[in-house]
């Protein structure tokens, strides 16, 4: 009786558990409505056998818009260039900002896309576009990169979540939520917004492991009885979600950065971003297909150079450490690192020594998997105001990412009878940066 009453727990607990199931796996009505629309999706369990050795992605989301001029596309000496110099990298002819000395010695691992022209300088809608690679239609919400990778690379028998996103700062968080769109809640992210640890996956102290197991068995028994003679994608998805619960609960230690040797923690550094990226490495190593680490907030309308002086060295150090760490673990062929934001920053410098929103000529990087290391694509003019060659839009960038992960950008999902490719028709990957 005591054990039974502990199952009920608090109202807060029941809400948290439901929230978890919604985010990490699938839950009732939401899934039902999504999954019935998405007719091509068999029950995810049935797709598991089709999935191969999977690639994984760590997205470093530079929320608010990091300046391309203070990172990947410096213009020293131009009136728009700001005070920082450029430094030579280990790729002949490629120079980046002096704020990134560590990445300068690792650019042989990385591809720089310098020709982004995404035409949208509004935080909210630009963030959605750059998370999805295209704009939603009035009646169709596309899945974001994380959801697609979770769908394509996640394993049905996985004991870890498919899509995890860290976004601890409050600014801009609501503008760039992880979203699975028409893929449904099964591929929605597990969102960590208050700290680095998803406390709701912890088994309550008031319930024993045996009790939890027995309840699972009871639920399975009832489910099987209910399922006799019935066939439903929703029911299969629901069953799979519950089957994954214990595995995901067991993954709680993946989020515990203290499980890493101190020397590894020291190597990444003490900042929150550094710890989250280290956890991201732990997650992808354990098989999580997609982790986004949101690093807010780069929106430097005032004091752009001070802001970048503070934040770019952190990005430089953490990104370089992550590349080294993944390389030493032999994971660079299977893990992709992407740096991306909703846009970049204006070449012009305002009276507050700030830079404003700018989407006409900015930069992103891709490292690992099928990306040609040490490559550069796109060129901006001497003042950084326009792309003069090899222009790239959001769709092409995403097609390139998908291709480098071994996914066919033209692969179709079906919503009802309508085929929906991973990128819009006519959009192609940048072959020049693919291996």
């Amino acid at each position, binding site marked *: 009786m005591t054990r039974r009453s502990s199952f009920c727990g608090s109202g807060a607990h029941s809400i948290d558990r439901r929230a978890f199931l919604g985010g990490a796996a699938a839950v009732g009505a939401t899934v039902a409505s999504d999954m019935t629309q998405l007719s091509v999706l068999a029950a995810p369990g049935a797709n598991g056998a089709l999935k191969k050795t999977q690639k994984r992605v760590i997205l470093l989301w530079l929320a*608010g818009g990091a300046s391309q001029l203070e990172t990947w596309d410096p213009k*020293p*000496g131009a*009136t728009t260039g*700001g*005070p*920082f*110099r450029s430094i030579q990298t280990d790729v002949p002819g490629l120079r980046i900002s002096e704020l990134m000395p560590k990445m300068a010695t690792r650019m042989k691992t990385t591809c720089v896309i310098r020709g982004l022209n995404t035409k949208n300088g509004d935080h909210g809608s630009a963030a959605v576009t750059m998370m999805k690679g295209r704009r939603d239609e009035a009646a169709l919400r596309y899945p974001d990169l994380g959801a697609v990778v979770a769908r394509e690379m996640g394993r049905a028998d996985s004991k870890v979540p498919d899509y995890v996103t860290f976004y*601890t*700062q*409050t*600014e801009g968080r609501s503008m760039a939520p992880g979203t699975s769109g028409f893929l449904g809640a099964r591929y929605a992210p597990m969102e960590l917004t208050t700290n680095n640890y998803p406390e709701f996956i912890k088994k309550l102290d008031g319930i024993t492991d045996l009790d939890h197991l027995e309840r699972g068995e009871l639920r399975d028994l009832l489910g099987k009885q209910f399922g006799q003679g019935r066939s439903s994608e929703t029911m299969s998805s629901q069953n799979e979600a519950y089957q994954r619960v214990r595995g995901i609960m067991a993954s709680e230690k993946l989020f515990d950065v203290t499980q890493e040797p101190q020397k590894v923690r020291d190597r990444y*550094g*003490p*900042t*929150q*971003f550094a710890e989250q990226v280290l956890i991201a490495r732990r997650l992808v190593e354990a098989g999580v297909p997609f982790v986004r680490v949101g*690093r*807010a*907030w780069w*929106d*430097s*309308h*005032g*004091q752009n150079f*001070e*802001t970048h*002086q*503070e*934040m770019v*060295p*952190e990005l430089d150090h953490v990104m370089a450490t992550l590349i080294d760490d993944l390389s030493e673990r032999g994971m660079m062929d299977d893990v992709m690192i992407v740096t991306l934001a909703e846009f970049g920053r204006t070449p012009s*410098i*305002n*009276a*507050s*020594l*700030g830079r404003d929103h700018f989407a006409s000529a900015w930069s992103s990087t891709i490292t690992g998997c099928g990306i040609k290391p040490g490559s550069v694509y796109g060129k901006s003019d001497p003042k950084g105001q326009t792309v003069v060659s090899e222009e790239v839009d959001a769709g092409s960038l995403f097609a390139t990412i998908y291709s480098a992960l071994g996914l066919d950008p033209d692969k179709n999902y079906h919503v009802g009878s309508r085929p929906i490719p991973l990128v819009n028709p006519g959009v192609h990957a940048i072959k020049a940066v693919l291996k």
Partner: protein
Amino acid sequence: MKAPNPDTLKSVKDFSRQAITFAIARADGSDTAYLGCSDFKVYAADFSATKFEPKELYAHESYVTGVALAGTTLVSGSYDGKLTWFDTEEGETIRTHEAHAKWIRKVIASPDGKLVASVADDMVCKVWNAATGKLVHTLKGHKEKTPNDFASMLYAVAFSADGKLLATGDKVGHVVVWDVKTGKELGTCEAPVMYTWDKQQRNHSIGGIRSLAFSPDGKSLAVGGMGKVGNIDHLEGKARVEVFDWKAGKLTAEFPGDKFVGLVNRLAWSPDGSWLVGAGGAGEGFLCFFDPAAKKTLRQEKLMMHVHDFAISAAGDLITSVGHNRITVHKLG
């Protein structure tokens, strides 16, 4: 020497400039000023010329953020970490030092013109012999990291009127007063309100001590910057000045700002110590006069530029302000 009344302030010249001017040095009574600019160049500007056309002298490799006149020797400092000595009479560069490991923020000369001090983001203040270029002191009293493990910055430096004291101020609001002769630390003051760390919303910081000025008797030290900021995407904190009895480390007056937002980038006392003038800005700028003894704001004048620096005459009757795309001259009295 009785100081002119701030009520008499009037703009007498105003020039537009393509570049941002970060620093100015102008000898007392001279029509010529030296400018450090965002186009990496150092200029000589003749304010008596019928057509205002600053003449390029030489260039650094980044923003020129400090210029100081030690007699006829000009010393400039830049984000390139270099200090350059220039003979203004001969029109020749004398020497260039790789002075700092990081970006130089300010360069000043002692009142007697014998020393030059530079501060940079390597968090070191260096004192140089103005004539020989020889390093006299390396003053280390500021932490390289903020409490949040990001690189700190050392923005401000000032000599006392007798040249015996030097003050330095950093990003987190820490001020150190030094004995110029020995290079020893004499005292510290704290102005933490000048530093805003936003952990919850944006996870970075803004602010810092941007200006310092000793009172003519050397007993008080004025500190300029910006008050706490809500949205650190913008320079929206109130322009702020605090005055310390630096020996006691005690705040004696504060001017939290009620009209203008932005950074107070430059401070100076009137020759009789009766008022203090601060200049700075955000999208626009200001010149503000304070009475530290009465703890009263005397005058607040809007300027059409974010002011980065000014030169003030010994009598306090001429202020030449430089900043974002403009240069303005004001007279008092």
